[in-house]
């Protein structure tokens, strides 16, 4: 099956629609429907596993909210319903954001932002940030291993027994790695001519096609049902 490919700008537009839809959402069912539309879009654009897992988690939360609304009372019920409400409000956008990052390459994303005439002072940090977030997780794994080697426990127990040493052992390598990475990435970027004042070109041509219009129309259409 061939996945549909949409322009990064369309994805950003859809994300915007989701954020606005959540703020004006009239009911829980409306949010559920929004998640369903995002699920369809995620499957079609080549992230079926991620989308289905996220949708199942959302379904679980929704079920939890409904069950606790019927069977629990008092403080417990409030705890569960506010919890699921809080997560439920964030969920559609987080899911859409995950699809956006997962299906868009850094260079494509940068080209799209340049097309939108966003200043370079914002485009470069945002692109670097999106690329670096997964690397923090990787770094954290290494730091944990080396902390174990040096007999500093990276756990709650170690934090209570030996607070300042443990915290320092997390922060210092994390920030050292970050600042070294900044040097390396900027050297690489300069080598590839990022300082060139002429507008950048991109191997991947980005432009709007039929599927962009369809996706945008579907999301806008769903958005408008909130006013019915």
């Amino acid at each position, binding site marked *: 099956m061939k996945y549909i490919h949409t322009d990064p700008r369309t994805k950003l537009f859809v*994300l915007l629609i*989701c*954020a606005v839809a*959540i*703020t004006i959402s*009239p*009911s829980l069912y409306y949010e559920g429907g929004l998640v369903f539309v995002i699920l369809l879009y995620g499957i079609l654009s080549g992230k079926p596993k991620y989308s289905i897992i996220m949708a199942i988690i959302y379904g679980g939360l929704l079920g939890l909210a409904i069950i606790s609304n019927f069977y629990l*009372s008092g*403080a417990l*019920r*409030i*705890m569960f*319903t*506010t*919890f699921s409400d*809080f*997560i439920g*409000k*964030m969920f*559609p*956008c*987080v899911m859409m*954001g995950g699809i956006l990052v997962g299906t868009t390459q850094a260079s494509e994303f940068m080209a799209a932002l340049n097309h939108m005439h966003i*200043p*370079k*002072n*914002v485009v*470069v*940090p*945002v*692109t*670097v*940030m999106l690329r*670096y*977030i997964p690397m*923090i997780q990787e770094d954290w794994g290494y730091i944990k291993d080396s902390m174990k080697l040096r007999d500093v426990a990276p756990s709650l127990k170690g934090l209570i027994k030996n607070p300042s040493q443990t*915290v*320092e052992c997390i*922060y*210092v390598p*994390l*920030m*050292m790695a*970050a*600042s070294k*990475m*900044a*040097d390396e*990435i*900027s050297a690489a*970027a*300069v080598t590839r001519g*990022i*300082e060139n004042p002429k507008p950048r070109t991109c191997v991947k041509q980005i432009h709007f096609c039929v599927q962009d219009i369809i996706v945008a129309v579907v999301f806008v259409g769903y958005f408008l049902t909130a006013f019915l």
Partner: protein
Amino acid sequence: MSNQKSSLTVKDLVTIGIFSALFLILSLIGGAVLGSNPVTTFWMPLGGALLPGPAFLLLIAKVPKHGPIIILGIICAIIYFATGMHWTMPVAYLVCGVLADLVSSAGKFKNVWLNIVAYMIFALSLVPTYFMFFFARESYMSYMLQKGTDQEYLDAMVKAGQDWVLPVMIIGTLAVAFLSGLFGKKLLKKQFEKAGITA
């Protein structure tokens, strides 16, 4: 701000991007622990202010110019908007970013104490979301009642959000941010300046 464009090099921009990633992760870890639990949700700004102080100070130490804090604010605003937060939060990040930049520039970005104050201002941007709950309570309540939430639920929510919570939240956030800044200052002095990675 007029010289901002000419003075930020590519290296600065990359550094800002990387430290924004670090800043966001650290503040999300602190905020998510408290924010996802309804009883402690009002203390979320405190958790969010607890961890990222050192990253903030090191960012200013590495890029002592106009711009990094404003761009950090813009990035936070984009991310929080994209994750569907209430619209007051991104706006607060933009405003606090500019204010913090001004405070920090008063000390030519080299004065650690002013930088800590800038961090305290920046940390406050998590608070205004809760203004809506406290100041627009009536409309919020009637809206919730219309949606079918029952009275018992709302009573408990009001009980958790007493009026004294708001000032305590602001002062608490400032205090936690100050402690985080102090810790960052200690780290800067003890480790990063010796290693020569500050500008």
